[in-house]
């Protein structure tokens, strides 16, 4: 219990854990208001998000698949934030990466694995380039990257909307969409009937790569130092500007990759309404996951499981609107952000205990 490393870990997960529990409590309250069975709801939520009906038919698999874009966009946010760049541009980079992959998927005709690799690369390059823009604006001109990425997200959404409705439009159906990408470009899935496949593997690899990059390489070290203490970095000889731009390039690449995988592994094309805010969801995973690759991984799966459990379980079985899932996630983020509330309460409880103990001791001695 006194091992400092263990305590640090405990401190890191205590507030998020309490936040998640609080969120579940709010969920319970809402369910009670709806006059539905509370404990049954929890059970159904979890079994439909994280459980297995029978061997080989696990809904958890779908959760993992749904978590894939969140993991990648979450990693994108992690890389940016750790370097001191508060960029929320994942959404725009994601969309452009998806568009690039969707286009090359039907415009080019290449042998199977090569085609897929080209699409992945294209998604990363496009996302990277779009991430470079706010980076260079911040470094050279001092433009606030938060505001810049907000604008760039809108611009990317408009561009992609245009591409889907005009140049890349496949037919005249009501909902505009691009042609389905060649089979050679599609990502393989592992189980029939599920979209869970290579995409998830890439996401897991990305988690490990980002971790190793940030904590085991020179470049990652530079970025973290520049993000934590600019003056120290300058003093030590680290080129913070270059580190910041590098961070944005990598951050954009990860988000673009997420978009490419979503096209290649799930939808096989891009259409109006492709954007459901996955960029933002990844951002929130990063915040809740303490801006750490492993945290992002866990939280992304948790979020996806909650949403899926609400959608499939609560909605279908108990007729509870599926938006409950998203609502609870929002509350959890709120609770994490208001973490000081927990810290103050814990401190107060600890004080109360120490006072009780000293009173008892006094009582015994007298």
């Amino acid at each position, binding site marked *: 219990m006194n091992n400092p490393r263990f305590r640090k870990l405990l401190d890191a997960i205590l507030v998020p854990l309490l936040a998640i529990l609080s969120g579940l409590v709010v969920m319970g309250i*809402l369910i009670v208001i*709806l006059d539905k069975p509370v404990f049954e709801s929890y059970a159904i939520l979890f079994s439909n998000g994280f459980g297995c009906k029978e061997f080989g038919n696990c809904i958890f698999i779908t959760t993992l698949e749904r978590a894939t874009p969140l993991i990648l966009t979450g990693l994108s946010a992690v890389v940016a934030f750790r370097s001191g760049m*508060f960029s*929320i541009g994942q959404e725009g980079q994601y969309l452009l990466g998806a568009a690039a992959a969707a286009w090359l998927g039907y415009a080019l005709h290449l042998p199977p694995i090569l085609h897929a690799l080209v699409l992945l690369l294209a998604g990363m390059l496009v996302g990277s380039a779009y991430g470079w823009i706010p980076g260079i*604006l911040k470094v050279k*001109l*001092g*433009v*606030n990257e*938060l*505001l*810049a990425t*907000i*604008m*760039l*997200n*809108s*611009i990317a*959404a*408009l*561009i992609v*909307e*245009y591409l889907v*409705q*005009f140049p890349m439009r496949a037919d005249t159906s009501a909902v505009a969409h691009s042609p389905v990408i060649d089979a050679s470009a599609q990502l393989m899935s592992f189980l029939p009937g599920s979209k869970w496949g290579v995409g998830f593997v890439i996401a897991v690899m990305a988690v490990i790569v980002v971790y190793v990059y940030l904590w085991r390489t020179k470049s990652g070290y530079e970025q973290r130092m520049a993000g934590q203490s600019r003056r120290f970095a300058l003093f030590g000889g680290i080129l913070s500007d270059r580190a910041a731009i590098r961070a944005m390039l990598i951050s954009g690449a990860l988000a673009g990759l997420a978009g490419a995988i979503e096209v290649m592994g799930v939808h096989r094309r891009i259409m109006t309404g492709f954007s459901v805010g996955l960029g*933002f969801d990844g*951002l*929130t995973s990063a*915040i809740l996951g303490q801006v750490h690759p492993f945290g992002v991984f866990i939280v992304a799966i948790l979020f996806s499981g909650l949403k899926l459990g609400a959608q499939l379980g609560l*909605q279908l079985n108990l*007729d*509870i*609107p599926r*938006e*409950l*899932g*998203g*609502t609870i*996630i*929002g*509350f959890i*983020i*709120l609770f*994490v*952000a*208001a*973490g*000081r*509330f927990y810290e103050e309460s814990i401190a107060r409880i600890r004080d109360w205990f120490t006072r009780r103990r000293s009173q008892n001791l006094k009582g015994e001695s007298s």
Partner: protein
Amino acid sequence: MEGFFSVFTVELLNSGIRLATPILLAALGGAICNQAGVLNLALESKMLLGAFVGILAAYYLGNSYGGLLVAMIAGGLLGLLFAFLYHKYRVDLVILAIAFNLIIVELTVFVMRAMFGNVGTWSDPSIVRIPDIQVPILKDIPFLGPILSGYNIIVYFSWLVVIVMFIYLYRMRGGRHLRAVGENKSAAETVGINAILLQTLALVISGALAGLGGAFLSIGHLKLFTRNMSNGRGWIAIAAAMFGVNHPVGVFLASLFFGFADAFSVRIQNVTDLPPNLVKLLPNVATLLVLVIIALRSRIALSMARRRFRSQLRAEESARPAQVEESL
């Protein structure tokens, strides 16, 4: 090409002004928050809440105007909660905004479905759309008449807010104090100005205005509520506030810019093959440019002092050899 120019009609202007109104209301809210030094990125959530609560209230009260009022109160309360969490727990503004946006988007649909069954959209025939008004004197002005008259009360209210906000910020004590807080909080607090109170006030007002903007969409326009009805207008409002450099008149013009681009893009589809989305790009790219210009301005000011010093040194240097020669 003839088709292209046929788009520029009075009808376009009318539509542009209508489309600009929700943006204008939310953007004015965002602007007053920026002036007070507190970045409010949760305009989207306040708009959406206003849209939902407004139409519900209109239905249960049997009165659409009552719905507008309730929408403003709801938005204001959300703004108050935002201010409370920000000041008491030092919650990061951006994360707080993201949380609020997420919660409201989902919670409104949740409540709608819980109340009315598993629907994607809700409406009711009994709800009366806020009527358009033909303003007596304005409508008779030649040429400008049709442009100025014929809107519903929310539109005229938004124009009024522009004027009132201008007067408050630049002609009244409270507004000046608010701007002082935004520009140099410690300087304001040193002279006894209550920064927290003013920032809270700004957040409440912006919530009320954004809520009204949302209600415009549901009660004043489409007569229904659907998931994510505001559809990013809260973010456009943030952009409009930036573009208008947080000045009420600037925000007014910026919102019109966005509104016209929207109206234009809808109409252009029918007459030419020009893609509508690209038109909407204009105001967004323009806002990005404004950000760049503002950043450039402060960068240049900083380096000016340095450059002056260096040229002074160079001038001294060129004068010195002459002095040396003189002493020889």
